[in-house]
């Protein structure tokens, strides 16, 4: 394995994108993700790539749309308020079936909110964000190493399924440094015969488009896209299971919350409490099956989130409300402490599944 280097999460995303083969980046400054832009502004010109600081988030995502239409790997990054602005472009990417990576290093909201870490864009990322019937694949790293490896994965998934993929990180993961191995291969390439390259007078013109004025035709396009989504649910759902074999309580947490929760799970285990954790790595598709499978064995689920409780709704749906789901959360840029999570575990242990 290659020697590890210390890198910020934001920088790891940027370097991994280059190693994955991405040569085009468009962005607009916003805390706490600006290191991605800063890093790529240094690197891209030296490797014949594009770094462009756009006039707005809206322009940036539409430049991404342009590159994506040429079939080349492309990305943008931002933080919560900026992602709202990109919503339009993301919907168009989905509607035109174009591959792209959008990184959201979340901060607290709503509105201008704050600049401290948050997970309160969960709904926006997993339920739409932009208009229309669509999904993005949403990846939730919980370490700097994963920010690198999931970046490559994101380009592969985007290319394979021709759709936008979002990396949903947060300010802590973006800003923290950890040792990371950059032993990364270029992302797998996929068919791009649909892309805009000029006809070279050898084929009929390709059209990249999301407009369809005949309802029955548009409906059919939606049906087909959702068939693709079913395949993705089947094949691409990712999660980590931690100490769930004998668990009576199951934590569900992603990203930075999962790291905090892991400390609490370990402390609770030392106290003899049978607690485990499911960490969704894909937030869409959500790991419904492992949660449902656990719902017979576990008496309580605890959703640990840096929001007012968004993922908890997916947990309840996944287990079809068979067991109580507690919320252990902080919001607005605050992070639950391991002690907060341990207290929730102890409460669940005491109640034994009673509401």
């Amino acid at each position, binding site marked *: 394995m290659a020697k*590890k*280097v*210390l890198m910020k999460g934001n920088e790891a995303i940027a370097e991994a994108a280059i190693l994955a083969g991405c040569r085009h980046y468009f962005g607009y400054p916003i*805390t*706490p993700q600006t290191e991605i832009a800063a890093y790529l502004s240094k690197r891209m010109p030296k490797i014949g790539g594009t770094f462009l600081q756009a006039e707005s988030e809206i322009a940036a995502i539409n430049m991404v749309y342009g590159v994506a239409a040429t079939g080349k790997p492309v990305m943008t990054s931002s933080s919560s308020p900026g992602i709202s602005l990109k919503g339009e472009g993301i919907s168009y990417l989905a509607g035109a079936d174009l591959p792209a990576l959008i990184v959201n290093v979340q901060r607290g909201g709503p509105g201008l909110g704050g*600049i*401290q870490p948050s997970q309160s864009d969960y709904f926006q990322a997993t339920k739409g964000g932009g208009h229309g019937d669509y999904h993005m694949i949403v990846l939730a790293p919980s370490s700097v190493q994963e920010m690198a490896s999931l970046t490559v994965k994101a380009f592969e998934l985007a290319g394979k399924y021709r759709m936008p993929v979002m990396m949903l990180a947060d*300010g*802590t993961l973006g*800003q*923290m*440094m*950890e*040792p990371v191995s950059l032993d990364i291969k270029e992302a797998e390439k996929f068919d791009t015969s649909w892309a805009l390259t000029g006809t070279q007078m050898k084929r009929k013109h390709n059209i990249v488009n999301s407009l369809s004025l005949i309802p029955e035709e548009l409906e059919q396009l939606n049906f087909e896209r959702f068939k693709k989504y079913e395949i993705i649910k089947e094949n691409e759902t990712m999660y980590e299971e931690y100490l769930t074999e004998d668990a009576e309580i199951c934590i569900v947490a992603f990203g*930075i919350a999962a*790291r*905090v929760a*892991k*400390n609490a799970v*370990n402390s609770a285990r030392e106290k003899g409490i049978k607690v485990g954790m499911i960490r969704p790595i894909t937030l869409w598709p959500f790991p419904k099956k492992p949660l449902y499978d656990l719902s017979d064995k576990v008496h309580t689920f605890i959703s640990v989130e840096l929001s007012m409780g968004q993922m908890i709704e997916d947990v309840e749906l996944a287990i079809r409300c068979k067991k109580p789901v507690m919320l252990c959360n902080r919001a607005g840029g605050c*992070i639950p*402490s*391991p*002690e907060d999570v341990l207290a929730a575990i102890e409460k669940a242990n005491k109640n034994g599944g009673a509401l």
Partner: protein
Amino acid sequence: MSTDKILIAGFGGQGVLFLGKILANMALQLDKEVSWLPSYGPEMRGGTANCSVIISDSPIGSPIVTEPDCLIAMNLPSLLKYEDIVSKGGKIFIDSALITEKSKREDVNAYYIPATKIAIDLGYPKLSNMVLLGKIIKEFEDFNLDTVKAVLETTIPPKKQDLLKANLEAITAGYNY
């Protein structure tokens, strides 16, 4: 299996984050697990800055330090804000050139180093963080001067080798204090 949770705090511009970076890189040199987490915000210069470093033999869960085993206080507000949360038997390093008060904790090991004065006397007024680092290296079993030298050699670009000399001098002064 041991874990060191270190919290470094001071004014922006004192080199709080850089000190943390060097510690983290030293841990990496020793093949340990490590995380480095800065406070980030509008306080780019002159405000308060702090940085959490966790060094461990096993994978690190939360990178946030809520109960430091080691506090490095580079100004008085930082000492007042954080000394209460230092774990029992932990260490507190204090720049006694800037902080004239003593720690009120009796169950920790407090080290008083007039780092800013030593740095000024050496002719490197900006390197009080490296003076403190010298003392930290002395008090931590795992670290030694060779490790930090190796780290600085890779961290400081070849064009700025005069900085390497200055940093090593400051570290050595702190180590020998």
